[in-house]
């Protein structure tokens, strides 16, 4: 039951063929998206980004007119299914090789600013 909440969230917008009106994005939306994507945008960048992103979104909006009733979304171009591998340990310890070029490492750990719970 609790998982359904997330699914409902997604379905909030009307269905795919309802023809969503051209939505240009506003500054708040762009900043929210930038936050979700962890991208720092300089102030000068924001206006440009709002404009360009809006144009892109308006452009892709035409998809809503496509005849997709009863069409199954594509999972793989050749309809292949997942291969399984045997449960075996095949990878050795690569720590030294990879941490040689890591930005911040101490005693084998990757160091980041404090993670607060």
């Amino acid at each position: 039951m609790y998982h359904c909440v997330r699914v409902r969230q997604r379905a909030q917008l009307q269905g795919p063929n309802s023809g969503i009106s051209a939505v240009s994005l506003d500054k708040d939306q762009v900043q929210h998206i930038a936050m979700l994507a962890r991208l720092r945008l300089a102030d000068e960048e924001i206006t440009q980004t709002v404009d360009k992103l809006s144009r892109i979104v308006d452009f892709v909006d035409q998809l809503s007119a496509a005849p997709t009733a009863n069409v199954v979304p594509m999972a793989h171009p050749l309809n292949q299914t997942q291969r399984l591998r045997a449960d075996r340990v095949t990878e050795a310890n690569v720590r030294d090789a990879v941490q040689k070029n890591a930005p911040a490492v101490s005693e084998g750990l990757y160091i980041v600013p404090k993670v607060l719970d």
Partner: protein
Amino acid sequence: MELHVQTLTELKAGLDRGDFSSVELTQAMQARIAQHGESLNAFITIMDDAALAAAQLADEKRAAGDGGVLNGLPIVHKDIFCTRDVLTTCGSRMLENFISPYDASVVERLSDAGAVVLGKSNMDEFAMGSSNETSYFGPVKNPWDLDRSPGGSSGGSAAAVAARLAPAATGTDTGGSIRQPAALTNTVGIKPTYGRVSRYGMIAFASSLDQAGVITRSAADAALLLGVMAGFDERDSTSVDHPVPDYVAGLEASLKGLRVGIVRQHFDSGLDHATGEAVREALQVLQAQGATLTEVDLPNLDYCVPTYYVVAPAECSSNMSRFDGVRFGRRADNPEDLLDLYSRSRGEGFGEEVKRRIMTGTYVLSAGYYDAYYLQAQKVRQLISDDFRKAFESVDVIAGPTTPTPAFKLGDKTDDPITMYLNDIYTIGANLAGLPAISAPCGMVQGLPVGLHLVGPHWAEESLLRTVHQYQSQTDWHRACPEAFR
């Protein structure tokens, strides 16, 4: 004939005959790169010592009667392929100091076959672009006109081959990134069937669309390389276990009975007139060789570009999340807190186009929009794929122009993202449907090359290569070289 003028196939024969050694050949290419590389800005990393060592080894193997099918032949890798202990930047500031700890499958296979790697070529940042203007390392110039773009994202590979700095180069194609630069630089570029070549070690842009391929000067060269690169790899779940035919052996059959489909909408007002004419002439050559032309319809063609610009950014936005300054890649100085570490490392590390695509992708996947955009796009993709499947019931290959115009000037299209995106209008369908496709030189428009584009059903690489090979036996376009680089 000078070494740099010879095709890969001709060089292979020369090495086999003992006309020259791999070391000599490698040195000749290195001299070419030293002379011209900078003017084109085609390379990010030049591997002089490693290349000579590999060439040396190849000569020793040849003397001992050993060596693989590409023994001692020099190639260039697009800087999107991970190369062990060698800088792998993907054209980005984010990875400007990234030394890969492993080799991509493509790199392994070609090296195991004896290829000598001359260097890593420049490319649009993270393969996002169609003009090689988004690279952190500066734009690549088109050898046919240094004020013009060579196309992208495999612009460096295309320019290097077109200017005879290397006989062949690897590339990747997500929406046309091998075929479009090939068309704009007078080279052959092939994108195989999705799943034909392993994506392991190929830095991911849009996982369900990316494929590795090659840029060469002839179909025969492409056949030689593809035969080595293709094949199942258990490290890539999307890799398909389908037998690899002998592409070289398959080149020599006649085109009699080949059914070529033409999409009417392809030749409408969006196509530059002269380009259209060149392509029509190429089709006549095919007819003269025994092919028949029929009109086919791809009813959902207009949805190709918007579909691509939902699916690709969505997948890319997620693929790019691993670049966070924690384990590798660029890390911002003195991060105040975790949020600062992430947003500043990524804000500084990624260029404008990459950030734009990440945000587009984040948007189309976000709560409330998934059904309308991503899910819808994946359904339209199925429609487009079905269109192709229907068309291939009556034709063996679909032909048309690769690009709407010849090479455009650098800086021309960078302002409006949509104009740039529409460059991919002929090539994108093949990526969406996972179909193999090839571009081959087919004419000149005011001194600039244009390409003929062929798409086949799944696993039709053999047929595509043969068609181009036969076409190239009757035409000379592919032999032309820009004057400055002869």
